[in-house]
């Protein structure tokens, strides 16, 4: 029973991070209809921004905010310098559908090969700001530490923030309008290009949080070839897809589901299934509900 609760808590925490990653993918998808495969690379870069910031500031949380700003700027830059140009140039032909996928994969590669040039290939360390030692109940120690609690709370906070922005503000309305129909939004006076850049920036900031939290949730070490980040790429994407790609809530449900499934598989089945488990979850969901858990029928536009 105790083991079960521990697994649940571990799954919940990593699920929260996956959810954040999924959220950043959904934010880009909703604003430009592009799946940003470079997102995990951007998150990795932002984590290094955070590492760099920690040289100048003492507080991890301050560094997190600096990394968020850095991640947002990086994302905005990518949108303006690459995606905008590409979407204008490559509008037709057999490659039009796959061009965004290929371009973001190229960006991922570029980020992955640039980072070691700046920070080297070896591990760097980011000390978690809170204790990673679990709370204890009586004699037993839970697998839930102050750090993990902070992670779950931060994710909840960010989710509330984005839901509010999307549902209650003019910016949110413009974001939704430009995703739904760029031409109509333009006619209604929305500056679609700027709004799209904003969507990317939001997504970049969210991804940065996911990246840094991933680092401090683990051992605190960060390297360009980190396995966790390749897993983050896959998990974030899978979580977004099983959530339906359109919905913020769906992304969160997808992330949590994935986190729980991988935690339980790891604990009760076999650690050899760790990488293949997300894939199986994805296949099962896509076969049962091709539009995702919260996706609408016919809403699958690629």
């Amino acid at each position: 029973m105790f083991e079960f609760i521990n697994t649940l808590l571990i799954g919940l925490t990593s699920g929260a991070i996956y959810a954040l990653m999924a959220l950043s993918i959904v934010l880009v998808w909703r604003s430009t209809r592009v799946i940003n495969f470079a997102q995990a690379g951007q998150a990795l870069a932002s984590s290094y921004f955070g590492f760099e910031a920690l040289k100048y500031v003492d507080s991890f949380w301050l560094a997190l905010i600096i990394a968020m700003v850095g991640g947002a700027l990086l994302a905005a830059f990518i949108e303006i310098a690459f995606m905008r140009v590409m979407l204008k140039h490559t509008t037709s032909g057999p490659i039009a559908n796959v061009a965004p996928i290929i371009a973001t994969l190229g960006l991922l590669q570029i980020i992955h090969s640039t980072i070691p040039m700046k920070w080297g290939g070896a591990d760097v360390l980011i000390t978690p700001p809170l204790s990673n030692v679990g709370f204890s109940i009586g004699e037993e120690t839970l697998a839930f530490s102050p750090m993990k609690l902070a992670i779950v709370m931060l994710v909840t906070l960010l989710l509330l923030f984005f839901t509010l922005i999307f549902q209650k503000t003019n910016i949110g309305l413009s974001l939704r309008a430009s995703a739904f129909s760029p031409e109509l939004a333009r006619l209604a006076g929305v500056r679609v290009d700027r709004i799209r850049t904003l969507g990317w920036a939001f997504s970049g900031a969210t991804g940065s949080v996911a990246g840094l939290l991933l680092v401090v949730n683990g051992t605190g070490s960060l390297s360009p070839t980190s396995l966790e980040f390749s897993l983050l790429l896959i998990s974030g994407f899978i979580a977004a897809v099983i959530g339906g790609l359109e919905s913020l809530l769906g992304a969160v449900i997808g992330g949590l589901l994935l986190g729980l499934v991988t935690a339980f598989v790891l604990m009760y089945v076999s650690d050899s299934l760790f990488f293949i488990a997300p894939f199986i979850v994805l296949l099962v969901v896509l076969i049962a509900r091709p539009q995702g858990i919260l996706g609408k029928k016919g809403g699958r536009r690629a």
Partner: protein
Amino acid sequence: MHKLSNLVRIILFIVLGVVIFILSNIVDEYRVTQGTTIAAYVVGIASIILLTGYSGQVSLGHGALMGVGGYTAALVGDQAGAKLMGETATGVNLPIPLTFVAAILAAAGIGALLGVAAARLSGPYLAGTTLALAVGLPSVANQFKSLGGEQGLFYIVGDPPTALGEGVTQSKWYFWIAALTTLIAIFWLQNVMRSRYGRIWKAVRGSDVAAELAGINVARAKILAFTLSAGLAGLAGALWAMTIGTVSPSAFQLALSFSLLTGAVLSGVTTLGGVMIGAVILVAIPEIVHSVVDRVGASQTVADNLPSLIVSALLILTVIFVPNGPVEQMRSKSMKKKARHH
């Protein structure tokens, strides 16, 4: 577009084969080995061109499918390597051509399964599913003892037959096998693309709905494309394994899938004509970069990462400026020119 007759094509391929044969006797050993790698890339890139350029699907998992091919070939091939390492041999000991066939069949089988899933998915969904496969499959191979775990398996194609004489080195022998296999594969692929199925795929790529209205079974067409493409990837995997001499999870990582996709885009996904371009770039750029870096004296990390940076930058520039590839670009330009003259 003017199409060459079959006879002319056969003659062209034979001439090409002879030229390659002569070249392999002129250049040094190292180039010959690079040629083998290029041949493996050509088959792999062709499999992407078939899938993406012709049937409009995308796969980020073809590196893993190459792995399926490579492992299959190693499992049914010569077991001398396994005995050398004291591993448990599978007891199968098929001749080389049959190991290639086995590689094709195994990868095509997995590809058919994937294709069934792929036919239901589009664009980003398919990309993500195959991406997950690309990451998942190598790690599965890692877990099985019979697949050699982290170390992998040996795949030894063997020495050249003594009948060929003294001058034939190991690397030349490998290269000839790879080159001949590649020529046959490309010739076959060209035939398929010129067949009814090629036209069906083009129709599906153009518009699912229109193809369906024209009486095409879209799902079946997509599954067939995926299966054939996976089979080609399997063959590429066997060639790849032959080049390295082993198969291991680390040889078939996500990066390989990316390389294939990059090569396909650089070659131009809509036509087989440029299939060499991408393969040569993939092999040449690391070497050029290394020689430049050696001269400039940059640090090791720069030297290690610069090639993939340059290749990725090329990839993005190609997607933006010549999305249909250099060959198609030139062809459409010359066609415009002709139109102006008439």
